[in-house]
């Protein structure tokens, strides 16, 4: 039996178009990234509300600030690697410090560009962006969550960064799922050990929990669509109630892993193991790279078992 996998960009594009039909403030601002953002249909339907600044990321983010000043709700839609790295100062000053009503959408995040190499990977974004205060850094894990997050971002008055996955993911939520900013979702109950994941690694953590359960280890699986603000309550509950926390992310371990390690070391120390990138990635497909760094079901389960052995 094969599980159907979805490209969250399709959900993203459909949701943005639906929002734009309801609200004429909604705009897309892109850097020659109409195709990679899957905004071709959006551009056809809303040509005046699609601003393609060309290959110029710094200007792109500045323009979005100006559009927000004029009452628009711009969604800046670009490959995460270029958006965050090239325009970091604009993100800091023009968006977050300015509390501008700008939504930054990082496409093909993490190692989605696989074989294209580290210049095109966006594994640093969580670590960079989580040092900026008072905004939202989000990574939905499934199509339904992507739709929820895009809708929430449009309605929220303030800056948001959201990662839209390119790597295929299954749907893990039902129709009743509602995204809550700053809240973790306990998608599997368990009190032996905690697997804390975000974005595309959530389904991998679930698969690891299945493997662990076969051996009688009941892992709690936390999905954290909000890197900023982090759900301190859920993380500290996991620190108190389970043997420790294994973090899993399609990013440098200074992202979600760093955030959780900092929180528990200050408030309730517990064993933490971080699965993610610790170096520029080698050559390989996105799926292969995640397996290679130990973010496979087997890899995560193994680290969880090691953590529990060490904790005894």
């Amino acid at each position, binding site marked *: 039996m094969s599980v159907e996998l979805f490209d969250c960009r399709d959900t993203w594009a459909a949701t943005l178009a639906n929002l734009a039909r309801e609200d004429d403030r909604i705009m897309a601002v892109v850097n020659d990234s109409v195709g990679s953002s899957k905004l071709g249909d959006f551009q056809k339907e809303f040509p005046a509300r699609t601003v393609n600044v060309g290959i110029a990321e*710094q200007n792109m983010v500045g323009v979005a600030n*100006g559009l927000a000043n004029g009452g628009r709700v711009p969604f800046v839609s670009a490959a995460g690697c270029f958006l965050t790295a090239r325009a970091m100062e604009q993100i800091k000053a023009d968006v977050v*410090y*300015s509390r501008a009503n700008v939504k930054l959408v990082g496409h093909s995040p993490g190692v989605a560009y696989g074989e294209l190499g580290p210049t095109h990977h966006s594994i640093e974004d969580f670590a960079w962006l989580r040092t900026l205060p008072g905004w939202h850094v989000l990574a939905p894990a499934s199509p339904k969550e992507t739709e929820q997050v895009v809708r929430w971002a449009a309605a929220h008055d303030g800056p948001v960064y959201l990662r839209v996955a390119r790597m295929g993911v299954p749907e893990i939520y039902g129709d009743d799922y509602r995204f809550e900013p700053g809240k973790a979702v306990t998608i599997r109950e368990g009190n032996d050990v905690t697997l804390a994941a975000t974005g595309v690694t959530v389904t991998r953590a679930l698969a690891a929990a299945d493997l662990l359960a076969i051996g009688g280890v009941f892992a709690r699986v936390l999905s954290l669509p909000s890197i900023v603000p982090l759900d301190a309550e859920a993380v500290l509950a996991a620190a108190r109630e389970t043997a420790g926390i294994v973090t899993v992310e399609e990013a440098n371990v200074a992202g979600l892993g760093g955030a959780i390690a900092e929180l528990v070391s200050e408030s309730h120390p517990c064993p933490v193991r971080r699965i993610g990138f610790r170096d520029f990635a080698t050559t390989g497909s996105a799926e292969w790279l995640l397996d290679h760094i130990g973010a496979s079901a087997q890899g995560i389960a193994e680290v969880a078992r090691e953590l529990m052995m060490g904790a005894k």
Partner: protein
Amino acid sequence: MTNGYADLAAAAAASGSLLPEPDREIAVLGRVPVGASREAAITHLQRAAIEVRRRSIQTVGDVGAGHIGGEFSITDALVTLYLSEMNISPEQVEACDPERDRLVLSKGHAANALYTTLVAGGYIPAQSLRTFLQPQSLLNGHPARTKIKAVEASTGPLGHGLPIAVGMALAAKLARSPRRTFVLLGDGEMQEGANWEAIMCAAHQRLSGLIGVLDRNRLQQGARVEDTNGLEPIADKLRAFGWEVIEIDGHDFAALLDAFAATPAVSGKPTMIIAHTDKGAPVSYMRDNVAWHHKVPNAEQVALALIELDAILAGIGKDAK
């Protein structure tokens, strides 16, 4: 999130570390009166620009920090815009009137000149100037939109203002609004690549409502612009990028008024007004001297500047009679 007039006054009153009072408080002249003759308008602006300079040099002297040279070079343009040219008022700012004209001070290090001009226009209370750079002040060394409602964009890092202004002008165009967007740029700042991204974009989008003022004082922080990474031929470059270019003496109010009156350009292109200015103008010992980028005048130098400024103030309007 945004702090208006009342918060600024309260913050000033609550501050435990107010700067000294100036020799006399700045005259809040407000806008050029409706229906004023051109001569009367120019006289009004000349007075206001001297008032702004004599207040801002005292602030810089008192606090021991600031960028007085580049503040004095851009003051005449700032005063002309806020007190005459822009469709804006404290009431429009307070009400967030979407049809107000926008101004972005891209050379954010001239914040003190902006704050003092905002006082002269009645946007923020004079008392708030005594908090400049003081603990918890809303008057940062670089303007912050989250702290002062009349500040449209937080600036400071160079090369940010023009892209933001492009977005503002684009929003106006999409709304089919005649409102204009002004952006004040340093000349050294034109070395930033982001400005050229924005210059291309503004021409491509045909943003005639975007008007730049390039403060061509020829000096950057450490040296002459042309000795560092030269801009010339800057007018030709801008024209080649699809902009209208107007070159004026940036300390000549008649020229400033005429240049702004020529916007938006009928050609549909954005306009760059290259304002030839002098850093530190009109103070004799500062004028065109690279040392005065962020040098702080001592008490004697402040007094000397005030004597020169007051002499100019006393002569304003007399030539015309």
